């Protein structure tokens, strides 16, 4: 069973929603965050080619589709326990309906307010799809206030004078409830209305027009006429029901043979509607219909069926025309006559120069291939390059190029945006601030008893020979410059010479520190070879806490990311040493292996723990081929914290996204 369906704009406003069971706003928020903004590749998405992607969160399954030209997202939420096969179809149909019905309203600029009465369409869609599916009916469950349906006795028709129907009352009248399914046969209520001129399946434009026009004057006049000529109404009949009836009558104009057996009732209702309308005149032109209590919707099942018929026809025509449009545009881009194609080519060329061309997949294919090759040349892993190109394609298909912009330029701009988005970290990376808040908790006014200071623990992992120890020393140097007391733990108990190498670094650093003075201090914590690295790390942290070191930097043994045995020991390491930050060092030189490296390390620390960032070493050796930065971030969604740019202790930099994007696009 569907829990909720929302239609929202990319600017963040919910345009329309229907909730069967309330769900937290955070469910959809995390869909937007993980899928649309952070584009997490592995974020609980089931990729099933035949179906729309799904996203799972807190026991809910979310499916979505988008209308890019209007900036809309359609999201359906239901419980993961239930399998709903018709959601894909629902999303497609709703998208077609919604965009066709309200295209003009949605294109209005400089406003967020958007009013529509989409409910009947939606309910009907759900109902139909469910029926097709033979599954449980939401309608039955949700139409709680429809109990009155069978209570209204059929009345006899008097064939009373028919006031002209108000323009499209149905659409105004927002029905909260779905129509009851156990309706009496619709054929039993024919109503002769020869004077109406509306077609049975009204065009969309009609609907929109009618919607915008105040319901009022004609309807009100008609209503008062009816009120004068008809007996007093029962009062609690709803005007909304009334309007359905009228609509139904209109629809039945061709049916002139039977006596309408509910005519009387109709008139009564109408008069009451009219009165309501009259009395609430100053509440606005549409209030008469809109103010109707939603619970009355669907009380008259027989008539409801009529309305539904019409609604169905209308919806079908909208959906099929939308589909036809899609098909024809696909066809047009594919096959056309010789003249047509050459003409198309010329205008296409022209458009390409002048702009204003609507982009199709085919237009984009070639330049995107070029872009992909360009990225590969910059040492971006193929997987990442393909994904970036896909996201650019997704971004652009269906869009118009701006004036005087070629496709290539458009792609370039879009690619720059995509790169910037992927490289920009979600939260700011201020290592010093983090260290400060752990080691010297401020006794701010918000808290009377500051928490106890403890050492900040940072550890470094990576494959063999990428420069773990070197970068660790650079980080140590950076911290020493900021007057921290640093303890370096030699937890590489595996490779011979590793401890000695660190010792040399520490000696060098000590020298630099004494030259510069200040409160900085650096020492090494070592326990020789062969011992368990996780235990050494733990001991180092305890030792640092006791001796008043502020930062512990833990060097670990290099390991191949596909070495099961060594990788699995990282989990214990993370548990025992419990580092505040785990950074992985990757070489700027590495090629497509970078993606796998990043993934494997990210998953090695067990549930709930992953990498916190990357250090990309040897950036000075690759010139502008800094693609590894993109590959690693692409694989994991984890930011690049440091770049190693040279042989000196001071050659450590933060990542400037602007700079990286510039190099990559050169």
């Amino acid at each position, binding site marked *: 069973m569907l829990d909720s369906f*929302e239609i929202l704009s990319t600017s963040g*406003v919910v345009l329309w929603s229907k909730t069967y069971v309330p769900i937290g706003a955070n469910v959809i928020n995390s869909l*937007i965050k993980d899928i649309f903004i952070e584009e997490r590749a592995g974020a609980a998405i089931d990729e099933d080619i035949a179906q729309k992607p799904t996203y799972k969160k807190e026991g809910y399954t979310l499916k979505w589709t988008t209308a890019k030209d209007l900036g809309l997202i359609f999201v359906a939420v239901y419980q993961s326990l239930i399998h709903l096969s018709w959601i894909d179809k629902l999303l497609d149909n709703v998208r077609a309906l919604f965009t066709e019905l309200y295209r003009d309203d949605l294109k209005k600029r400089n406003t967020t307010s958007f009013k529509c009465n989409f409910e009947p369409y939606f309910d009907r869609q759900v109902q139909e799809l469910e029926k097709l599916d033979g599954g449980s009916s939401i309608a039955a469950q949700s139409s709680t206030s429809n109990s009155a349906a069978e209570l209204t006795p059929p009345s006899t028709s008097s064939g009373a004078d028919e006031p002209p129907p108000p323009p499209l009352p149905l659409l105004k009248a927002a029905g909260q409830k779905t129509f009851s399914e156990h309706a009496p046969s619709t054929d039993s209520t024919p109503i002769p209305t020869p004077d109406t001129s509306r077609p049975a399946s009204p065009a969309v434009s009609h609907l929109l027009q009618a919607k915008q026009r105040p319901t009022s004057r004609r309807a009100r006049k008609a209503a008062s006429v009816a009120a004068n000529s008809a007996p007093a109404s029962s009062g609690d009949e709803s005007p909304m029901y009334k309007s359905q009836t009228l609509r139904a009558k209109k629809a039945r104009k061709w049916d002139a043979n039977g006596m309408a057996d509910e005519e009387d009732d109709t008139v009564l209702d109408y008069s009451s509607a009219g009165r309501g309308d009259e009395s609430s005149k100053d509440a606005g032109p549409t209030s008469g219909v809109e103010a109707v209590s939603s619970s009355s919707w669907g009380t008259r099942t027989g008539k409801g069926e009529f309305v539904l018929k019409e609604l169905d026809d209308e919806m079908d025509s909208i959906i099929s025309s939308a589909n036809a449009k899609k098909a024809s545009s696909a066809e047009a881009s594919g096959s056309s006559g010789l003249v047509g194609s050459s003409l198309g080519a010329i205008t296409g060329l022209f458009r390409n120069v002048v702009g204003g061309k609507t982009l199709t997949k085919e237009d984009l294919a070639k330049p995107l291939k070029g872009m992909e090759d360009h990225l590969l040349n910059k040492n971006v892993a193929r997987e990442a390059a393909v994904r970036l190109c896909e996201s650019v394609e997704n971004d652009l298909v269906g869009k118009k190029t701006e004036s005087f912009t070629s496709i290539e330029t458009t792609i370039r701009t879009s690619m720059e945006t995509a790169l910037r988005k992927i490289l*920009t970290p979600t939260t700011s990376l201020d290592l010093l*601030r983090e260290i400060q808040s752990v080691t010297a908790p401020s006794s701010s006014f918000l808290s009377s008893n500051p928490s106890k200071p403890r050492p900040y623990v940072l550890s470094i992992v990576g494959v063999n020979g990428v420069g773990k120890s070197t970068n660790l020393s650079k980080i140590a140097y950076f911290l020493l410059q*900021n007057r921290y007391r640093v303890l370096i733990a030699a937890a590489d108990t595996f490779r011979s010479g590793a401890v000695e190498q660190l010792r040399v670094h520490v000696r060098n650093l000590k020298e630099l520190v004494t030259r510069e003075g200040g409160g900085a201090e650096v020492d090494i914590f070592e326990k020789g070879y062969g011992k368990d690295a996780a235990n050494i790390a733990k001991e180092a942290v305890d030792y640092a806490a006791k001796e008043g070191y502020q930062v512990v930097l833990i060097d670990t043994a290099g390991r191949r990311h596909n070495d099961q045995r060594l990788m699995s020991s990282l989990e214990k390491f993370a548990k025992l040493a419990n580092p505040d930050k785990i950074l992985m060092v990757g070489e700027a030189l590495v090629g497509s292996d970078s993606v796998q490296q990043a993934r494997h390390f990210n998953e090695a620390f067990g549930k709930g723990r992953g990498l916190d960032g990357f250090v990309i070493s040897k950036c000075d050796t690759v010139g502008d081929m800094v693609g590894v930065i993109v590959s690693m971030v692409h694989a994991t969604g984890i930011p690049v914290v440091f770049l190693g740019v040279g042989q000196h202790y001071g050659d450590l930099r*933060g990542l400037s996204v602007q*700079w990286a994007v510039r190099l990559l696009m050169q």
Partner: protein
Amino acid sequence: MNQRLEDLLTKAWGPSLPVIIVTAIVALLLPILVHTFLYRARTPTSLPSFLLVGPSGSGKTSLLTVFENGSPAPTHLSQTPSTVQVQLPPSTKADSQKYRSEHDPTAKQRPKFLIIDTPGHGKLRNHAFEQLRKPQPHLKGIIFVVDSASLSSDTPGRSAAGLTEAAQYLHDILLLLQKRYTGAKSSKGPPELPVLIAANKLDLFTALPAQLVKSALEAEITRIRTTRAKGLLDSAVKDETLEEEREWLGDGGEGKFEFGQMEEVNVPIKVVGGNVIGADGSDISGWWEWIGEQL
């Protein structure tokens, strides 16, 4: 008598009356036409505008809907910026109309302006920064929305993540505004660009009152600007320019950062509390007032 006068006039005014009339009409109408044409063409952009910034979930988009419609609409994370045209409510007076009498008909015209909402997610803040980087002659102010309930920390001594995030974002915005001033060509500097810090969600009982929001943000920015100054250079910086690139928000001293320091760079900052959503409806009158003052 009459005849003679006419003769005289005809002679005096030259060749023929029609020419005179036509010339006169053209002379009179042309400026009007040109004015209306230019004015028309420029109206969409010439409305004063305000920029809505702040961390994700602080209530910017909700506030936008309240500004426009008077009641909040449900919202989710924003991915794209949006611009909305808003009219000052009758209860608030624009500064420019303060001294007009109640009966002055122009006083009844509620000024219109644009509000530009930006996404607050860390990856999408570029939209906001772009707005501030390019010169914006119509930008009348910046509204920085913070979720006051996210600023207090559960672990004593540690700044709440919400506070750090808000302060970092605010720091970056203010730094950009400061650069705008120091980088300006003219000796007078750019025009004043006021900032309103809208302490939102005061309806929640965990929320800090506006005064505490102010001091919490100031204290956190003090910390941030010191660590920023000591932090690593980023990769874009060439070695030759090593130290010049360092940016320091506010005045040069190592002491406490205060919003008042920004007035030196023509950025007056005000902190006003309110709530977009709440049991008793929304209370955004203080923010309306601030907007009124800028118009």
